[in-house]
């Protein structure tokens, strides 16, 4: 291991580290623009120059490997002068428009010019101006500000795997453009906004909306896919202004998907802000008391088995638990959190988790995808798989609709029968999977939602067992279920599933349509067939006026994920907590509180009054809630049910990445993205574009 001296401090670092990384190890800051720890090294901004003894010129710290005996000075007169010079050159063509630039206040160039630059410019000649480029509805460009660090180019090529950003021209004439001047078509495109060290790429929807120092920052988690990406919610007053990623090595590194980042404008539209009660066939505004009384009246003389509850995709664990307890008190066994009808087996936890963990993907040696398209269902996870493919050429096999995953994948067919062949070892892929140390499979919701979902689940278990995906001795469990709903794992963990003799989602809807079920409680469940509920009395609790609320007889206004402190469990089985960034609008309340208040009116008071008490109850129901943010490995067991397979091909679990839930469906930005990207993809597929 090379030993070197930096600013008089002797330090020993692993071979292969650069001088800049060595400096970071001992807490010395070296200014930089182009270097980013998750991207390849470009070494083209020259801001990281340091003074190296016995080198006639200063060297770039980000690209120079640390070697034994080096004596580095980051703060000598020579280094300072070099940096000042580089900064002066960068500022030659950079407009001094900080007062009207959205990056102002969080700009690397601004900060570093202050600390490392000159106090005046000497350049009096003509400056360069660059025309604006179109990058789509999400990214706003101001290309005169670009300092050619190429971070955006490297991100697009390396992490996103959509090499649509590039540079043309050389030297001062270099310009960053997208190919064909089209929108940057990656589900992770918003991350280039964070990466751009200056204000060349800024957020379109957030443009001129606020200044960073006016915003209140709340650490929270995302619920628009099942990964539970760590986010920071920036709000001002009563409004969520934007969402940024928080670094989390286990889940999202420092990326988030475009839906996570840009769907927040949906939080301001179509909000249910007061209770409603249906009177003479029309929903009328009501008070909380009137709404509760109406529910009480509807439940009069109705027996427990005539009541049912369905939890939606965004429901938090606290409210699901409160609803489950309420249903138990009312004597109803009919409850289900799998509103899409996925045949997930709640009896064995390992059977519905992403057991390898997201970070564990980096250890996988081969991957079989069954009825899933992680690029659409979990773009951040897809970036992880892509990272593994870049590092070690991960072989990927795909069963399901053919899709571009941003890395090569062998499409072996779209037919559940293939699973039998693989499980039986008759398919060549079986050998390839068995031959490696850590094979994994990813089972998508598209495969589980089918009528033969339970049989596919059992087959997947068999594949995992027979093809060496279960290796407890080396701590490897390669069986993974990729969820699309943030609420699903939490719902299964607290047992929001039919009790003995209870009906599941399909059963509830059929029974409600047939008149056997009289009252249905929808906890944010919008993606069900609401027209099939017949004449049942429907209670909808949620935050957006979507399908569920339109059908409801009583609407109770709940809180969205940025408005409540609640727990969600991500697809790996990691419980995480959100925090209150803004208050719910109007009369809306946190969801578990609504259920607690309702229980009192119904005469079966739930035994918790505070968030703490319900957290304790949550812990009693399932000990995994004890450790927030930790994954507890689940014990392997028996799950799924053998059965006949369907011959129908798999269909994608999500047809439009940009609109999957009530929040993103209400978002104007997501509607624009749908228009631009989904339409474009259809065009490319059918070849009808000019």
């Amino acid at each position, binding site marked *: 291991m090379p030993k070197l001296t930096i600013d008089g401090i002797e330090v020993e670092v692993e071979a292969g580290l650069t001088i800049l990384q060595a400096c970071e190890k001992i807490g010395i800051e070296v200014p930089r623009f182009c270097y980013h720890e998750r991207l390849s090294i470009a070494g083209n901004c020259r801001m990281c120059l340091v003074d190296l003894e016995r080198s006639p010129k200063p060297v770039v710290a980000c690209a120079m490997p640390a070697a034994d005996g080096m004596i580095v000075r980051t703060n000598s007169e020579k280094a300072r002068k070099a940096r000042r010079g580089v900064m002066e050159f960068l500022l030659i063509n950079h407009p001094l428009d900080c007062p009207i630039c959205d990056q102002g206040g969080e700009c690397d160039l601004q900060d570093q010019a202050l600390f490392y630059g000159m106090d005046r410019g000497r350049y009096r000649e003509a400056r360069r101006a660059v025309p604006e480029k179109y990058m789509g509805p999400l990214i706003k460009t101001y290309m005169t500000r670009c300092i050619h660090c190429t971070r955006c180019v490297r991100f697009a090529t390396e992490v996103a795997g959509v090499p649509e950003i590039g540079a043309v021209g050389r030297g001062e004439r270099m310009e960053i453009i997208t190919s064909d001047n089209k929108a940057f078509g990656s589900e992770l495109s918003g991350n280039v906004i964070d990466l751009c060290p200056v204000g060349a790429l800024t957020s379109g929807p957030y443009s001129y*909306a606020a200044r960073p120092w006016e915003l209140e920052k709340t650490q929270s988690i995302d619920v628009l896919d099942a990964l539970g990406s760590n986010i920071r919610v920036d709000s*001002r*007053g*009563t*409004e969520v202004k934007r969402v940024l990623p928080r670094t989390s090595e286990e889940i999202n590194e420092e990326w988030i998907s475009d839906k996570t980042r840009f769907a927040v404008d949906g*939080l*301001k*539209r*179509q*909000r*249910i*802000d*007061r209770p*409603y009660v249906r009177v003479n066939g*029309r*929903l009328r505004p009501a008070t909380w008391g009137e709404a509760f009384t109406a529910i009480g009246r509807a439940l009069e003389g109705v027996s427990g088995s005539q009541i049912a509850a369905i939890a939606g995709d965004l429901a938090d664990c606290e409210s699901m638990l409160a609803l489950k307890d309420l249903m138990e008190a009312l004597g109803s066994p009919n409850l289900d959190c799998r509103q899409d009808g996925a045949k997930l087996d709640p009896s064995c936890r390992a059977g519905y988790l992403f057991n390898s963990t997201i970070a564990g993907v980096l250890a996988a040696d081969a991957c079989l995808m069954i009825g899933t398209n992680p690029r659409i269902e979990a773009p951040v996870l897809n970036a992880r798989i892509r990272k593994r493919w870049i590092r070690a050429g991960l072989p990927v096999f795909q069963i399901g609709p053919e899709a571009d995953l941003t890395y090569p994948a062998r499409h072996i067919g779209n037919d559940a029968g293939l699973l039998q062949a693989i499980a039986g070892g008759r398919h060549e892929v079986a050998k390839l999977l068995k031959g490696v140390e850590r094979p994994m499979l990813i089972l998508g919701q598209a495969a589980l939602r089918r009528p033969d979902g339970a049989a596919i689940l059992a087959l997947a278990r068999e594949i995992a067992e027979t093809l060496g995906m279960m290796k407890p001795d080396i701590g490897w469990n390669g069986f993974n279920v990729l969820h699309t709903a943030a609420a699903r794992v939490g719902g299964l963990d607290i047992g929001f599933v039919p009790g003995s003799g209870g009906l599941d989602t399909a059963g509830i809807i059929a029974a409600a349509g047939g008149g056997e079920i009289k009252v249905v409680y929808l906890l944010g469940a919008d993606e069900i067939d609401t027209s099939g509920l017949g004449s049942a009395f429907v209670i909808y609790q949620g935050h*957006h*006026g979507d399908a569920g*609320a*339109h059908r409801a007889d009583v*609407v109770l206004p709940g809180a969205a994920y940025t408005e409540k402190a609640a727990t969600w469990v991500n697809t790996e089985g990691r419980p995480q907590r959100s925090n209150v960034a803004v208050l719910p*609008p*109007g009369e809306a309340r946190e969801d578990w509180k609504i259920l607690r208040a309702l229980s009192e009116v119904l005469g079966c008071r739930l035994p918790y009054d505070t968030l703490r008490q319900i957290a304790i109850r949550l812990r009693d129901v399932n000990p995994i809630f004890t450790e927030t943010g930790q994954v507890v490995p689940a014990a392997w067991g028996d799950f799924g049910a053998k059965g006949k397979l369907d011959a129908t091909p798999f269909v994608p679990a999500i047809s439009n990445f940009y609109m999957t839930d009530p929040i993103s469906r209400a978002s104007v930005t997501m509607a624009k993205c749908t228009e631009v990207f989904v339409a474009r993809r259809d065009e490319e597929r059918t070849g009808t574009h000019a």
Partner: protein
Amino acid sequence: MSIGTRLYTLLRGELVGTDSFGNRYYRSKGRRLHGRERRWVLYKGDAEATTVPAEWSAWLHHTAPQPLMERAAQARSWQKEQHPNRTGTPAAYRPSGSQLRTGVHARTDSDYEPWIPE
């Protein structure tokens, strides 16, 4: 105005002029302070500095040696008439969108769009 000011004005002050609001402007007779004469105003009614018109303000602050009467007489078309500060009165300025102006809450950025069932 205090007795002291009144007495001082009576003994030492020399009336220079009166403006349209009825404020009277004085300067000291003979006595100089820091090398220049003293100039002051006795307000008509409440002491309200914004009732001093520009032509007198310039003189009062020793910006001009004489009140700028001729300049004030040839006011440009874009010059607005002097009026005292109206803050706190019913005529106070209310920016557009102010709830005090229209009595209704104007839409702002941070409003949400409620769901209205059809």
